[in-house]
Each structure stands twice: as C-alpha cells, then as structure tokens.
C-alpha cells in the first residue's frame, strides 16, 4: 500500500467565507477525514493558514499572501493510504473543497525514501 497526498486547490483563494460557511465547511471536512480514518486509511492532515502567508518571487521579492496575478492556492492537504491512485482519487472525491466551483483536488503518490522519486 502506498501513501498519497490529497491536495486541496482553491481556484480563488482571495474569496473570504462567512463564519457560518466556515463552520459548515469545517464540519464537512472533519466528516470527510473521519470517514477515511474509519477505513483505517488516514495518515496525517495538514491545514495551511493564510495569516502571515508570504510568497517569495523569482527575484527574491517577498509579497504578502499568495494572490496577485494568480489567485489559485493550496488550502491544505491530507495524506492517506491507498492501494492505487484510483482508490486515492475516490477518497478525494468526497472532499468538500470540490463543492466550490473551479476548485480541484490533486492526487499525488508520495515518494518513498528508498526508491528516490
């Protein structure tokens, strides 16, 4: 069994959700993760905060928050165990991030230390 990162990608990270929306979204996310954990397939979860977020550019220029020309950003990722990329993609389908139009989930197998890439 391999480990996969399920990466939550927001099309427009500058959109700010209301506290009510946030609460609904948090519950849905927790239920989604709980469902994966109940199948003994959850490894870890990493949420990414926007407070103090910075982008370091090619010319070493540092800007606040990731939004400029490109609004797409990563909201966080969880790591799961799965038999295949297809199974991992099935887990990703349940992520509430996908309820937002334009948002996507990226599924990536995690490189093992012993086989390089």
């Amino acid at each position, binding site marked *: 069994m391999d480990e996969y990162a399920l990466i939550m990608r927001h099309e427009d990270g500058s959109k700010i959700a209301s506290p009510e929306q946030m609460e609904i979204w948090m*519950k849905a996310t927790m*239920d989604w993760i*709980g469902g994966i*954990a*109940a199948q003994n397939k*959850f490894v870890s979860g990493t949420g990414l905060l926007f407070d103090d977020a910075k982008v370091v550019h090619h010319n070493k220029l540092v800007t606040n928050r990731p939004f400029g020309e490109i609004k797409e950003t990563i909201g966080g990722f969880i790591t799961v165990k799965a038999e295949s990329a297809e199974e991992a993609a099935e887990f990703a389908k349940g992520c509430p991030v996908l309820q937002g139009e334009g948002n996507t989930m990226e599924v990536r197998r995690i490189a093992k230390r012993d086989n390089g890439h």
Partner: protein
Amino acid sequence: MKNQELIPHLFRTEYRKIVAVLCKRFGFDQIETAEDIASDTFLTATQTWTYKGAPPNPTAWLYNVAKNKAKNYLVRNSTFETKIAPQIAGSSEADDLMEIDLSPQNISDSQLQMMFAVCHPALSPEAQIGLSLRILCGFGIDEIAEAFLSNKETINKRLYRAKEKLREEKIKIEFPGPSEIEERLENVLTTIYLLFSEGYYSVSQNQTLRQDLCLEALRLCTMLIENKSTCKPQVYALLALMCFHASRFEARVNKNGELVLYDDQDPGLWNMELIGKGAYYFKCASVGTELSKYHLQAGIAWWNTQKADTREKWENILQLYNRLLQLEYSPIAALNRTYALSKANGKAEAIIEAEKLKLIDNQFYFALLGELYAGIDNEKAKQNFEEAFSLAKTQADKQAMQNKINKL
C-alpha cells in the same frame, strides 16, 4: 469484622503492599520469595488469630510479622551471610540493611514503581494484565482464571513465563527517568484501561468479580494521580473515562445477569456520584495543550451520560470520534463513529459510509448495518442481523440479534 471476613479483606488490601515492598527490596530475582513471605504472613495470621482473636491493629501486626519473616530470610540467605555480613558485622549498617520499610511512603512508591515494571513494553499485554492482577491487585490465581475464563494451570504458566521475562530483561523496580516517563506512562495507562475493559466487557458471569476488576483499575489510576510525577492530564482523562463508564454498571445488567443495551437502560440506575466524580476529573484533565485519546474518549463517554437524544449530542460525539480515529484506528471506534454519523447526518449518508468499512468478520459490523437499514430496507436489515447472529459468540449476543429480527 469477623476473622473469616477480616483476613480475606486484609489479604486484598495488604498482600500487594507487602509484595511490592519486599520485591522492591529483593529485586525480581526473588519475586517468588517476596510472594511466599507475604502469603506466609497471612497463613500465620489465620493460625494465630483463630485462637487468640485478631490483634487491635491487624495491619500493623501483619507488617511486623512480614518484616520478621523477611529478616529471617535475609539472615538465612547464604549470599548475605558469606559476602555482606562479615563486612558490616557489628556496624549500624547491618540493622539498616535488615530493616524492611513498610512506611506509607515506601509502600506507595514501591507499588507505583512496581506498576511501571509490570507494564513494561517487553511483556505481552496478557502478561501485563496477569501480573497486574496478581502483584498489584492481590487477586488469587482462581479469580484471575475466572476473569479470563481460563484454568488455574494456564494462568500459573502465564504468570511463570511473565516473571521469567522480567528477570531475563533485567527489568528494575524503579521510576523511569524524566525523559522516559511519558512513553512508559502511556503503557501503564493502556494496561489499566485493558484491566478495566476486561471487567466491563468480560464474558465472565461473575458480576462481583467483574466489578472488582473495574474498581482495581480505578484504584491504580488514582495512585498515579496521587503522585506528583505521574499526575498528568491524560491520567485524569482516563480516570474520568472509567468513572463515566462505571456509572452504568448497575444499569447495564438485569436481574438475570443479562446485558441491557444502552438504549434500553434505566437512567435512574446510573450512578450520579460516579458521573459527578468523572466530571470533576475531566475538568482536571482539561489543562495543557495535549489532547490524548483518553480526553476524546472521556468526552464521548460524558455525552453518553446524557440520555436525551439531541442533535447536539450526536454531532459532538461524531466530531470526537472523527478526531479519535485520526489518532488511533480501531474497528469498534469506526463502527461507533458511523452510528453517530447516522444520528447526526442521517441514515442515507451513514449507509454509504458503513458499506465502505467492510469489517466482514465482525458481528457488530453487521449489527450496525442491520440497524441502519431498518425502516429503509427491512429485507437488507434482516439479512444483516442474520449475518450478525451467525457470527455472534455468546448466547446473549445471539438473543439480541434475534430480538432485532423479530422487531422488523
């Protein structure tokens, strides 16, 4: 208290203290000697008190006899005589060396150190529980055999092997160092909770014995609370968890000794004093930043002391299970989480999630599916209850499934 009650009572409370102190003094190499001296002390008490009556302070009497027997043993011990005695002969050290310290402080320290030794990760969980019951709780071999639905011979063998292991691994009766204590404490808590569960979920029909196991687990956990270096939030959380569970002890068994399911229990029989104690310990556990699995389980257990079937209750239980499963997976937590999901988010969603669990050798998995399909697809509900029935190991579990089928 009459002798025939007094001696078994003192055996239960004092045997383990004497063994812990002597064992601490002699080391695990001579654990049998420590046990023999303690047993012998009670034999002497039985013989003497039967004729002369119990002394005014029976505990002090026992300690004195145990001390003298231990001293006699030390004197007879050839190593002592040939190697140590000549060097210290006539000095005051000789007396110190012979002194057996049965002060409350040393009893408590010895027992706690013994707890860490017995719950050493080198020992298998069964060995840890067996030794805990024998050495820390003073249970008789036949009681341990009954608790495990086993026989004396098997238990004796298991304890013998466990003691051999203690010696092979050269496990010392001492407090773990500050860097080790968290990890070792984790092991001690696991064993205490196993001990509790052994009593709470045991298949043994002996109610008194089962309750005793639970009370012993509570007592051991309380000992950890009473010591500064082990009085930690997760220990309070475990104590709270066990209090909440234990509060339903009376309610979960009927007059015929049959298990009463949570939904059918009379909350009037729930022990409010234990619930109150649990709430107090839970509050003590709510310090620091670490949220252990015991905190989460105690939170769930607290909500289960609230009989009202509210959405708030199930939503909270669901979220606690979501977090618990992230910390540590177990099939039973997965099943309970899915039941909470059906209560909080509805049966339709829960059925989809339940089908994904695929715990096909677990009777409770099919019992849960039966429960979820009931009222939605009774044919499927029946099939699942029948599957649970065929997997059930006890008559009570089979009967519970039959009742569910009859109700459809």
